[in-house]
């Protein structure tokens, strides 16, 4: 919610809505937090599924945003993109 309120680029807003879910019992509700949870509990093959491929696609999208494919990004938006990238790569095994 904090991230959503702090960005102006519409595509970045959409990306945040896509990557963060409300009401999480563990962590921030981010896709990155779900991957870390899956890795800790070994639930990647259970009924809850794995978020890793979703995260890979999201990183491609972040790169496009930084490259200006969806319009210009202000300083604050760029900072938030890197915050999202950090969340998606920290402890998830994904590379930026």
């Amino acid at each position, binding site marked *: 919610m904090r991230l959503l309120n702090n960005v102006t680029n519409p595509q970045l807003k959409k990306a945040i809505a896509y990557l963060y879910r409300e009401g999480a*019992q563990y962590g921030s509700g981010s896709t990155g937090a779900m991957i870390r949870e899956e890795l800790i509990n070994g639930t990647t*093959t259970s009924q809850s599924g794995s978020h890793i*491929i979703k995260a890979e696609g999201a990183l*491609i999208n972040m790169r496009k945003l930084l490259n200006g494919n969806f319009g210009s990004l202000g300083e604050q938006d760029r900072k938030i993109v890197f915050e999202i990238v950090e969340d998606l790569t920290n402890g998830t095994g994904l590379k930026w």
Partner: protein
Amino acid sequence: MVVKKNIMKELEKIDRYIYSSLVDLLLKMVPEYKKKIEQSGSKIIMPEEGVYRFMYEFSVCLIEEILENIYSDFVTNAFMYINKVGESHNLELQNILRIGIFEILYTTKELDRNQVCNMLSEKLQKDFNAFSKYYY
């Protein structure tokens, strides 16, 4: 190095095949969604952004439709599609349903979870309710 590149190309082909098969089937089984995309002038998400993003966009649209009229053709056909894909034993397809659609529906507080659950096949109801471990 060349071998690795070729393998990656082959894997990308598989991803694209899964993506186009799922999207084609969706647009065929839920023509109302196709019409909505055309009317809004928006583009179908490109494969490199992933099938998960496409399914998210579809889920957002499905949520709007459920809230407007749960008995509409859109909603009926959408759940027929979801249940059809859910018959597959392919783990990747099952994951796409779980992460791409169920998690979005489950975490949308405006929706009645029981109502959504009842529209899913018995097999998929278990997958949908598995999110109770992760979300309030």
